[in-house]
C-alpha cells in the first residue's frame, strides 16, 4: 500500500481505500522534548504499526505512551522525526483535517454532555459536510454496530447512559467517518471489571469486522494481552523494551522489566489467551442412539478409547457410553441404561478460552469435555492432556522463533514489527493482509 502513488492527504487515501480498512503507521526517529525537562518524553522512537492490527502500548504512567499516541494525530507535535500514516507524512496535512480521519477514543468517552447521542456521533460527518440524511443513516448504523438500539438511544443525552454505554457511543463517534486508524487512550480504564470485559470482547468483535489499525494505550497487562495483536512494552522515554505478540511476551519476556510487568503466571495467562478452536482437539468414537451396542464395542476396540460419545441426528452431544457399559450389551446404544455420570451437561464452545476449558474439565464427571461449534454441533473433545499439549506447543513454537531470530543475527526478543513471521500471528492470514509485507 505505501508503494502506491502518494496522495496528498489522508482524506483522499480514505476515499480511495473505500474508508474502512486499516493503513500502516510508521514512526521514524520520533522524539518529543518539553522545555523545562532534561529527559525526552519520547526518545528517538522508531516503530511500525502494521495495517489492520491492534497494537497496544503498555507501560507505567509517565513512560510516554500517551504522548507517543497523541503525536500520531498531532495533538502533540513531535520535536523531531517523521510519522507516516498510510505512507503519508502526518505533518504535510492540516491537523484538524488529519484528525477527522483518525478515530479518537478517550477514557470516560469524553462525550459532549449538551449534545444528544446522535449529535455526538454526527460531529465528524458534519465537519466533513455530509448531508443530513446520510448523517442520520450513518448514526443509526453505528449505534447498531456498537450494540445500542438507535430508536431507544439516539435522542438520549450522555448523562442518561451508563459508563459502558457512554463508551460505546464514544467508539461510535470515533468510527463515524470510517477512519482507517483508531487511537484509544485507556478507553476502558474507568469502567467496572464486568463492563470492561464485555467492551473488550465487543472491540475484538468489531475489529474482526472492520480491520482498522488500532493503537491502544493501557497500563493493564491483562487488557493488553487480551486485545493486542502485538504489544509494545515501553519504558521511560517511550523506549521499546519488547514489541511482540502476547504469546512471545509470555513465553519469552525480554528481561526482568517485562517479567516484572507481567507479574508471573505466564502459563495461566496463556490459557486465558488461547481459544479452544486454536488447539488440536482429540476425537472420541462417535455413535448414534440407533447404533448397535455390539457394533460400537467393536469400533471402539478398533479405534481405541474407552469412551464413546452419542450424538443426536443434528450432531449434538447426548451422552457418553463407556466400554464397560457396552460389555455384553446388545440392542441400540440409546437404550442402554445410563447413570448420572454418563449424561453430558457441560459442553464448551470453540470460542472459549483454554482457561474456561480447564475449569469445565475440573468440574466434569468425565476426564473429557465435548467441544461444540455452531448450533451445538460436536467438533471434538478436550482433555487436560490436550491443554497441556497446546501450551507446550506454543512454548515450543516461541522457542523455535527465538532460535530463528538469533540465527538470523537479530535480538532474541522482538523489538520491531518487521519482519513479521506469519507464525507469530496465527490469525493474521485471515486479515486483510495489509501487512508491510
Amino acid at each position, binding site marked *: 500500500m505505501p508503494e502506491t502513488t502518494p496522495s496528498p492527504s489522508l482524506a483522499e487515501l480514505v476515499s480511495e481505500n473505500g474508508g474502512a480498512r486499516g493503513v500502516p503507521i510508521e514512526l521514524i526517529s520520533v522524539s518529543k522534548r518539553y522545555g523545562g525537562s532534561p529527559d525526552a518524553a519520547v526518545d528517538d522512537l522508531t516503530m511500525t504499526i502494521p495495517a489492520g492490527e491492534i497494537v497496544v502500548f503498555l507501560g507505567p504512567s509517565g513512560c510516554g505512551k500517551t504522548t507517543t499516541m497523541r503525536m500520531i*494525530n498531532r*495533538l502533540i507535535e513531535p520535536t523531531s522525526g517523521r510519522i507516516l500514516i498510510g505512507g503519508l507524512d502526518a505533518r504535510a496535512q492540516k491537523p*484538524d*483535517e*488529519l*484528525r*477527522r*480521519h483518525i478515530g*479518537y477514543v*478517550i*477514557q*470516560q*468517552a*469524553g*462525550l*459532549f*454532555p*449538551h*449534545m*444528544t447521542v446522535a449529535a455526538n456521533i454526527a*460531529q*465528524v460527518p458534519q*465537519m466533513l459536510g455530509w448531508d443530513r440524511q446520510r448523517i442520520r443513516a450513518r448514526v443509526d448504523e453505528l449505534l447498531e454496530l456498537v450494540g445500542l438500539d438507535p430508536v431507544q438511544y439516539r435522542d438520549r*443525552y*450522555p*448523562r442518561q447512559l451508563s459508563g459502558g454505554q457512554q463508551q460505546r457511543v464514544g467508539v461510535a*463517534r*470515533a468510527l463515524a467517518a470510517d477512519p482507517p486508524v483508531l*487511537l484509544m487512550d485507556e478507553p476502558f480504564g474507568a469502567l467496572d471489571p464486568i463492563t470492561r470485559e464485555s467492551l473488550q470482547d465487543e472491540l475484538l468483535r468489531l475489529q474482526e469486522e472492520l480491520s482498522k489499525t488500532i493503537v491502544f494505550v493501557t497500563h493493564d497487562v491483562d487488557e493488553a494481552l487480551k486485545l493486542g495483536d502485538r504489544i509494545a512494552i515501553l519504558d521511560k522515554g517511550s523506549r521499546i523494551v519488547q514489541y511482540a505478540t502476547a504469546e512471545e511476551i509470555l513465553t519469552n519476556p525480554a528481561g526482568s522489566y517485562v517479567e516484572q510487568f507481567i507479574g508471573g503466571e505466564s502459563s495461566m495467562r496463556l490459557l486465558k489467551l488461547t481459544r479452544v478452536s486454536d488447539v488440536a482437539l482429540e476425537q472420541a468414537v462417535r455413535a448414534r442412539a440407533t447404533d448397535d451396542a455390539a457394533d460400537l464395542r467393536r469400533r471402539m476396540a478398533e479405534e481405541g478409547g474407552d469412551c464413546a460419545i452419542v450424538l443426536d441426528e443434528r450432531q449434538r452431544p447426548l451422552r457418553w457410553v463407556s466400554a464397560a457399559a457396552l460389555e455384553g450389551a446388545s440392542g441400540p446404544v440409546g437404550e442402554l441404561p445410563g447413570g448420572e455420570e454418563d449424561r453430558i451437561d457441560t459442553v464448551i464452545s470453540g470460542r472459549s478460552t483454554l482457561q474456561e476449558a480447564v475449569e469445565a474439565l475440573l468440574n466434569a464427571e468425565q476426564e473429557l469435555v465435548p467441544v461444540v461449534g455452531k448450533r451445538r454441533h460436536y467438533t471434538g473433545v478436550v482433555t487436560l492432556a490436550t491443554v497441556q499439549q497446546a501450551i507446550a506447543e506454543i512454548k515450543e513454537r516461541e522457542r523455535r522463533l527465538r532460535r530463528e531470530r538469533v540465527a538470523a543475527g537479530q535480538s532474541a526478543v522482538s523489538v520491531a514489527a518487521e519482519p513479521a513471521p506469519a507464525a507469530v500471528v496465527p490469525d493474521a492470514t485471515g486479515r486483510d493482509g495489509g501487512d508491510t509485507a
Partner: protein
Amino acid sequence: MTLWEYIAGRSDMLAFQALQHASMIAQCVLVAAVVGVGLGVVVHRNERVAAIATGATSVVFTIPSLAMLGLLIGPFGLGVAPSVIAIVLYALLPILRNTIVGLNGVDPALVDAARGIGMSRTRVLVRVRLPLAWPVILTGLRVSTQLAMGIGAIAAFVSGPGLGEQIFSGLARLGAANALNATLVGTVGIVLLALLFDAVFVLIGKLTTSRGIRTHA
C-alpha cells in the same frame, strides 16, 4: 392623595418612565453582554490577561455608583450618556468574570476530545466551550441585570431616564405632598421590573440551555 390616586393620576408618565427604565437596562445589559462575553472569549485562554481584565473591572466595582456618575458629568454632561456608561461599566464585571470562569471550567477532557476528533479552535469554542459555559454566563447576566436596575435608579442623579426620577424627586421633597408616594412608586416599580427581568432570564435559561446539562431536567 393616596398612593393609588397618585398612580392613577400619572399613569401615562409612570408607564413611560418604567418603559424607559426597562429599555435603558435592557440595552445597557445587552451592550455589557456583547463586550463582556466578547472580552471573556478573547482573554480566557491567557491567565495573565484574564486576571488583568477582571482586575480592571473589579476596580470599577469599588467606586461608589454615585461618585462614578458624578465623575462622568465632567466629560459627558448630564442625561443619558453618563447613565448608560456607568451602568455598562458596572454590568460588565459579573458577565466578564462568569464568562472566563465558565469557559475555563469546561472539562479539559472534553476539549481534548473535541480537538481529537478534528474540531478547529473556533469550532471548539462555538460548539463545546460556549454551550457548556452558557449556564454560568447566563448567571452573570442575571446578576448584572439586577445590579443595573439599582444603578439605573441612581442615574436620575445625573438626570438619567427612568423610574429613578420618582425616587430622587420624592426624596428631595420629603414631607411635601406626594413625596412619599413618588419614592414608593419609584422603588416598588424598580423591584417589579427587576423581578420581571429575572423571570425573563429564567425563561431564556430554560429555552437556551441544553437538556443534557440542565440542573433540573
